[in-house]
C-alpha cells in the first residue's frame, strides 16, 4: 500500500470567512457549514481536476449543530412558526452536504461526534480499503454565544481541514500515530 500523504492543510476562524468568494447562498448557511466550507476552500484544491466520485468527506465535531439547534428552537414561536431553513441545519452532518454540492463530490462520507481524535484514522482506513482515492477531512466546531449561555459551554468557532491522498508528494506522510487533526493542522499551517 502506497503512503498516505497530506497534500494541503488549513485552519480558519470566523475572521477568515470574507477571504473567499462563495456567492449569495453562503449567507443563508449556518455557521458550522460556513466554517467547514471555508476550511475546505482554504486547502486550495482544484477539485475539477480530481476524480470527484472517488473523493470521500470525513467530518468530526464536538458540538455539531448545537448552536443552530438553540437558535431554531428559541425562534420556533416567531410568526410563521419553526423555520424549515434553520431546521435543515440541525443535523451535524449538513456541512458534508454543503461541501459535496459545492465541489461535486460523490464519494463516501462519515460524520463523527465527540472530538477530533480518530478522524484521520477513519479517513486513512477509507483510503486503504479503496473506498476512495482521496479524502477531505474536516474538524469543525461552533458554540455560539447564545448556545454557550443556554447549555453552559464555552463559546467557540473554529475549523481545520486536510486533504489526504495516496502515493503522492505532499506536506506530510501520515504516520500511525497521527490520529488527531487539530495538532497536525497547527503544525502544518505554522
Amino acid at each position, binding site marked *: 500500500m502506497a503512503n498516505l500523504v497530506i497534500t494541503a492543510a488549513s485552519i480558519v476562524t470566523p475572521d477568515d470567512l470574507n477571504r473567499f468568494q462563495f456567492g449569495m447562498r453562503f449567507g443563508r448557511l449556518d455557521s458550522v457549514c460556513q466554517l467547514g466550507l471555508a476550511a475546505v476552500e482554504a486547502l486550495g484544491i482544484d477539485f475539477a481536476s480530481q476524480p470527484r*466520485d472517488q473523493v470521500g468527506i470525513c467530518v468530526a465535531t464536538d458540538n455539531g449543530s448545537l448552536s443552530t439547534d438553540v437558535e431554531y428552537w428559541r425562534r420556533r414561536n416567531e410568526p410563521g412558526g419553526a423555520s424549515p431553513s434553520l*431546521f435543515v441545519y440541525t*443535523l*451535524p*452532518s449538513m456541512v458534508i452536504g454543503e461541501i*459535496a*454540492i459545492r465541489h461535486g463530490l*460523490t464519494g463516501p462520507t462519515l460524520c463523527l461526534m*465527540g472530538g477530533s481524535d480518530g478522524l484521520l484514522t477513519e479517513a486513512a482506513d477509507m483510503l486503504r480499503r479503496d*473506498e476512495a482515492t482521496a479524502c477531505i477531512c474536516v474538524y469543525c466546531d461552533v458554540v455560539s454565544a447564545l448556545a454557550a449561555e443556554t447549555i453552559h459551554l464555552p463559546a467557540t468557532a473554529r475549523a481545520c481541514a486536510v486533504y489526504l491522498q495516496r502515493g503522492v508528494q505532499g506536506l506530510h506522510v501520515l504516520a500511525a500515530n497521527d490520529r488527531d487533526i487539530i495538532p497536525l493542522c497547527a503544525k502544518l499551517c505554522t
Partner: protein
Amino acid sequence: MEITVVGCGAVTAVGQGIDSLRAAIRANSSGLRSCARFKTPIYQSDILGAVPNGGLVDDPVFHLADLALREARAQAAATLDKFPPARIGFVLSTTKANIEALERLIDGRPCSESAQKHLQAHGLAADLAATHGAAGPVQTISLACVSGIVAIQQAAKLLQRDAVDAVLVVGVDCLSPFVAAGFSALRALDPLGCRPFDRDRNGLSLGESGAALVLARGHGEITICGWGGSNDANHLTGPARDGSGLVLAMRRALKAAKISPRDIGYVNAHGTGTPYNDAMESLALRSVFGDECPPVSASKGMLGHTLGAAGIVETIICILAAQEQLLPGTPRLTAPADGAPTQLLKEPRAATNLRHILKLGTGFGGVNAALVLRHG
C-alpha cells in the same frame, strides 16, 4: 474476514423485544397510530410510531437504547463473556440524541444532569458504553438518516482492523416536538400516516426506537459482507431525482461483497413514503437490477421513520427475514405507485433459500448508504 451478528435487540412502536418485531413482520401490522404525544394540531400529523408508554421518562433516549442493548447483550452473552471490556467497542448512531433536554432547558423546565449530558451524542455514547461494559473504542455516528447503516459499517471496520473483538452497535432517536416541528415546517409529514411506495403517498411518519446489534469476528448465521456509501452532491433535503447517488452506493456495496445484482434475494428499501424519495429509489433499483429486480419492501409503514435508529432496526428486520425465510411486506401500502419496483411486496411472502439481502438508506445532505447481509 467475516463479521457476524451475534445479538439483536429492539424497542419500537410494535413493542419491546425482537419477538414483537417478528410478530409484526408475520402479521404485516403497523405500529403507527394517532398519538397525543405532542400538542397537535400545531404539527402536520399526529400519526406517529410511538413506543408504547414511551416519552414518560426523564432521559428517553438512554432508556430506549439501554433496553435494546440489554436484549442484544443477553443474546450475545456467550460471545461477549470471552472478551475483556477493553476489547469490546461501542458505536452509537443518532441524529438528535436527547434533544428533549434542549427543549426543557430553553423552556425553563426541570432537566436532570444526565438528561442534559445526553443532549450531546458523545455524552450519551460514553454513558451507554460504560453501562454496558464496553471499555474499548467508542464512536458516535451522526450522518442523518443513514447513521444506522454507517454505524454497522464502522463497527465492522473496527473488527476487521482488530481494534476490538466485539462491538455493541446501537441506534436511537426519540419522538420530540423539536423534530416534529421541523418536519412539519418542511411539509414532509403525511397527515394520513406514511404509505411507502403507494400511489397516494404524501410524506413520512415519525417514529422512535432503540435498536442494537452485537457484532464479532467469525462465521455465523448472519454476516455483514459489504457496504457502500456516496453523496448526491445535488441538494440538501431532496434526493437526486435520477437516483444516481443511491445507485453508486448500491454498486459499491455489491462490489465490496463480491456479488452481482442477481445474487440479491431481497431489498429492504429506505422507503420513507415521501413522493420524491420513493420515486428516486424505484429508479435507482431499476438502474441496478434492470428488469430482474428482486422482491422489495419497506418498513417505515410499520415503525415510522426512526431516524438514527432506522438503519439498525431495519437491518434487524432483514436479519429476521433471513432467519425466518420470510420476506417482509410493506405495511400500509394499498396500491403501488406507477414505476414502483416490480416485485414490491405488499404482504409477507415465504422465501426459498434467501441468502443475500440489501438494506438501503438515504438522508438529508445527499447521503446514501447500502449494506449487504448474507445468511448461512
